[in-house]
């Protein structure tokens, strides 16, 4: 890049709406859909795995094998079937979120204390009502911990979808930046993608505090040291990776 500055603010100013804004919106859409779809699939799957225990090992192994597949390969393999629609990105990304979410739903439900379950039963709750009104709310912090990992991973992975031509911030990085040997859009793409990931992560933390006010908050103000930080991420790791896997489910390229 030589004599060019790393960031040219005038370019950013004149391209703020298009392509920066449009690509950001595409990115948001391409990442939020798989996260929501993944949650929608993981909840019943997780409930089923807790209800019928024999189901869990095969489900767990399957999602983990799928998780090992590089996203770029899956995008290209799907391309002839889904062509250049958003589904080419959404289907693989949804599958990846399952690898994080299903174990967390199962762990969350397994962590519901027996006396809580019995109390619900004693109050006359049927199985379905007990699940919806007692067990799922108690499991919620663990589910949200998984959702946070899945969301951050998905948002960073969507960039790869641009290599297939599906848009998003990766497209900004690739076509505006790399093909033109122009670093500014690359920097903008990276910064926006990281900012989006942190924003969604922060929103999920707020959502959890609002939904489950009974859970203890991590002590802030300098006291938020390794153990509490580790505990929150460790809760998001999968069962096979115990004991405590803080960085087990990372996003890939």
């Amino acid at each position, binding site marked *: 890049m030589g004599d060019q500055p790393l960031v040219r603010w005038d370019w950013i100013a004149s391209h703020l709406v298009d392509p920066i804004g449009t690509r950001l919106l595409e990115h948001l859409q391409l990442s939020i859909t798989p996260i929501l779809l993944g949650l929608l699939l993981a909840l019943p799957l997780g409930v089923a795995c807790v209800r019928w225990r024999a189901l869990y090992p095969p489900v767990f192994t399957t999602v983990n094998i799928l998780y090992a597949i590089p996203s770029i390969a899956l995008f290209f393999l799907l391309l002839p079937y889904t062509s250049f629609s958003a589904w080419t990105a959404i289907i693989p990304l949804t599958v990846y979120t399952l690898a994080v979410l299903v174990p967390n739903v199962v762990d969350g439900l397994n962590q519901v204390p027996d006396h809580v379950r019995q109390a619900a039963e004693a109050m006359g709750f049927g199985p379905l009502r007990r699940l919806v009104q007692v067990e799922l709310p108690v499991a919620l912090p663990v589910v949200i911990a998984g959702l946070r990992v899945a969301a951050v991973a998905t948002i960073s992975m969507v960039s790869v979808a641009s290599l297939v031509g599906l848009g998003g911030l990766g497209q900004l990085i690739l076509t505006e930046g790399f093909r033109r040997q122009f670093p500014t859009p690359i920097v903008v793409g990276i910064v926006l993608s*990281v900012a989006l990931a942190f924003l969604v992560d922060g929103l999920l933390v707020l959502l959890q505090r609002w939904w489950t006010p009974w859970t203890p908050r991590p002590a802030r103000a300098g006291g938020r040291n390794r153990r509490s930080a580790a505990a929150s991420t460790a809760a998001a790791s999968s*069962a096979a990776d115990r004991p405590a896997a803080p960085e087990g489910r990372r996003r*890939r390229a």
Partner: protein
Amino acid sequence: MNLMLTVAEWLGDPQQWSGPAGIPARFLEHLGYSGLALLIAAAIAVPIGLLTGHTGRGGFLTASAANVGRALPTIGVLMLVVLAVGIGLTPVMVALVVLAVPPILVNTHEGVRGVDPQLRDAAQGMGMRGHEVLLRLELPVAVPLILLGLRTAAIQVISTATIAAYVGIGGLGRFIVDGQARRQFEMVAGGSLLVVLLAVLVAVLFYLLRRLLVAPGLRRRTPVGR
């Protein structure tokens, strides 16, 4: 179905199986880049993680590194490094190592950190000194997590090395890039399948390593579904 047939045909074509642009050569190239990047990253991250975990300092730093690392879009990092330094093996290695360090670092740190304090007390009570506690107790107990970090990093490096073909190095990604340019889908899909194969092989390798390296007393601690 037709598509699958053309892909199988491409994979079965003896022409693809020889020469410097053949499947074995590309496969080895890919394995070489990924292995080298993983080795460099491990050489950096494991000692630092052991040290920070053992002393209990720097936990916040490693956690932050992991968070940022998780959120960074790989292709952006790769392309920025290549624009800054130019095309070649070195910039690609830099990008791959940068991406592989955080998961290894954090898992090593947490693995050592997570050792039961009672065990540490016992080791000290037996007269072990600091480095002995680290090497003979904390390291073996942390092995499962260190391996997990290495596996996570390895899979990530393999995917990113695929993308590296876009910036002009070899490896299995070449089939994807060249196939796209020539509009030969069977080549793109064949290359993708080979990447999948490599990733699955690496996952199996780490499974075997886990069986091999984790002390027998620790192995039973992986309950399924708790």
